[in-house]
């Protein structure tokens, strides 16, 4: 089949995006470095940076000191203070809104605890939009918002950002993105993604999984979410609900899950199970604090807490062993409250993996905790919000400034 190659213009747009992505993810980078990383010649880099500089996306500076002979190469920096996005994170116990500058710098943020209870779309979107408007007031007049995105603990339909199910939030069929965009009222849509999927993306681009193209991120936030990156691409599935490893059935006929099934990984490893097994259900502490208290108690010799962690670690190991066999990942990352659970039950988790995972797959896998910690999902939302401007910088910028 004959197909015309990409036009000059398409190549230029693509290269602009690639260069901006290098600077966005790698921080200030010299022109010489960009030349060698992108494999294009120096004059191309010069033309590309000139375009991006004119658009106000990057600026060029002389490096402080290089310690080397010769004329120093100009350093290209992202205009972090000028080009930003709004990122939102809706967890079970916490909501966050942040203004994140190009280059991934969190310029401003508002955190608030979230009450567990029925999902109130109006109140939630009003709160998040309110935070955004507060932050907007402190923004320099020449700054441009190039996108907005939210991470949420639920299954999100890829086509329209509809939250189809979020049992731990009590959210079902909620037009969250649409409503938040309406309240935000800055002329931009709000992209919505599953929190664990975005966490995976964040760890892949900025966290412990940089340079690792096959990884699985497991996010614990009452339930268990998963994000699977295969060959550098996030696995989204047919409609966007892919990677829900928390609802992999590991124990048929086991504990009842919020999704209606029994014996899901989430039901055997989630917060409720840990607290019940440790004899702490119904206490006044919930969420991360409660999980940490169990790990702390186990460390001090509390037998019930130790048993609870052993049990949960064992099921977590079963789940991870299955994932290792299916995906042959290079890395499995434990984030959210799973970080504490993994560190407190690693002997169980790895024993189960040693027993159940194929030797060929398990010997290369690296088990790690999240490098971005509590900000993994928020960082992922910011990356999602930046996706447009990184794909086609000038076009995306023209779109937002014409509004």
């Amino acid at each position: 089949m004959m197909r015309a190659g990409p036009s000059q213009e398409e190549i230029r747009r693509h290269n602009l995006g690639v260069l901006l992505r290098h600077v966005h993810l790698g921080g200030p980078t010299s022109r010489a470095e960009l030349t060698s990383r992108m494999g294009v010649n120096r004059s191309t880099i010069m033309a590309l940076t000139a375009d991006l500089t004119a658009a106000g996306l990057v600026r060029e500076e002389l490096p402080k000191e290089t310690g080397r002979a010769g004329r120093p190469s100009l350093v290209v920096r992202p205009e972090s203070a000028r080009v930003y996005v709004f990122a939102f994170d809706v967890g079970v116990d916490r909501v966050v809104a942040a203004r994140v500058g190009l280059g991934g710098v969190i310029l401003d943020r508002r955190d608030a605890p979230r009450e567990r209870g029925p999902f109130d779309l109006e109140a939630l979107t009003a709160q998040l939009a309110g935070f955004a408007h507060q932050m907007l007031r402190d923004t320099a007049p020449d700054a441009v918002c190039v996108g907005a995105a939210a991470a949420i603990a639920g299954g999100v339909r890829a086509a329209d950002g509809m939250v189809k199910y979020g049992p731990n939030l009590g959210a079902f069929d909620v037009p969250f993105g649409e409503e938040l965009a309406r309240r935000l009222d800055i002329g931009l849509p709000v992209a919505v993604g599953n929190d664990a999927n975005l966490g995976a993306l964040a760890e892949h681009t900025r966290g412990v999984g940089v340079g690792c193209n096959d990884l699985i991120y497991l996010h614990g936030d009452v339930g268990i979410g998963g994000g699977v990156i295969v060959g550098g691409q996030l696995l989204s599935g047919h409609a966007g609900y892919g990677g829900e490893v928390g609802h992999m059935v590991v124990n048929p006929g086991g504990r009842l899950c919020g999704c209606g099934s029994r014996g899901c990984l989430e039901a055997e490893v989630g917060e409720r199970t840990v607290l019940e097994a440790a004899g702490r259900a119904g206490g006044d502490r919930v969420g991360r604090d409660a999980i940490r208290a169990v790990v702390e108690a186990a460390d001090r010799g509390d037998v019930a807490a130790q048993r609870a962690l052993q049990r949960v670690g064992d099921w977590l190991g079963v789940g991870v062993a299955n994932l290792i066999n299916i995906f042959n990942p290079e890395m499995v990352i434990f984030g959210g409250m799973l970080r504490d659970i993994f560190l407190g039950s690693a002997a169980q988790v790895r024993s189960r993996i040693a027993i159940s995972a194929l030797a060929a797959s398990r010997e290369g896998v690296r088990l790690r905790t999240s490098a971005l910690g509590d900000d993994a999902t928020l960082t992922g939302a910011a990356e999602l919000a930046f996706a447009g401007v990184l794909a086609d910088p000038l076009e995306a910028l023209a779109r937002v400034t014409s509004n």
Partner: protein
Amino acid sequence: MSETTSTDLGVTPAGRGAPGSGPSDDARPILELRGVNKSFGPVHVLHDVSFAAYAGEVTALVGDNGAGKSTLVKCIGGIHPIDSGEYLFEGKPVNVHSPRDAAALGIEIVYQDLALCDNLDIVQNMFLGRERKNGIVLDEDTMEQMAAKTLQGLSVRTVKSLRQPVSSLSGGQRQTVAIAKAVLWNSKVVILDEPTAALGVAQTAQVLELVRRLADQGLAVVLISHNMNDVFAVSDRIAALYLGRMAAQVKASDVTHAQVVELITAGRSGDLGLTNGNGGAEGKEAP
């Protein structure tokens, strides 16, 4: 199987790969001891001990009290000269007679007591005994910059000021400073003796992540610990000492908690470990 607990984990890893039958890509160890013996007078503490540490990996050294872990570490660090056996560094035989020799090779040890001076600040502690000088005066600026760069490289964000005295730091922060001090000297092997022993859960997590990061940055890390969760959370290999003999050195991905506990308490577990638990036979490494 809803009540599976640790006791069920004594099962040998699935037959699809015998324990220790690691990949053929086993790189050469950066630090290797072969058949090391050490006696103190009539007490024979280390019997034909073999041990290896690899760049980019965490090797856990486990064993009961009195198994010889500290003696082995002190032999590696040049505090106790070895009586017989081979000491190889980067594949070449070396003679290590003093801590200075070990430091010159790039081997640093962080002891349990951390050996930090409470009255000195973080920078002063990190350069203690190896101060940078500019002529005859101390080069404080350079030292502060190097200390800051090292802590930054380790993603340490918990310390507010490099000029605060160590007495004002928490246990986890002290451990962090002691570890940073060890890696400041372009060291290649860092040995940590019970780094999480006195810490709370939150700080233990931070120190474990730091230990992992050191290895991921290319250092060979040797971790001595009694906590099996800590060992399994960060190690790539586990070396178990039993009554002065190396019961086994295995890949962490190939063994279970129960097997490691057996190696520690009985010197053997199934096919692994010493052929005769009471000693006599040579410590066998997994094939």
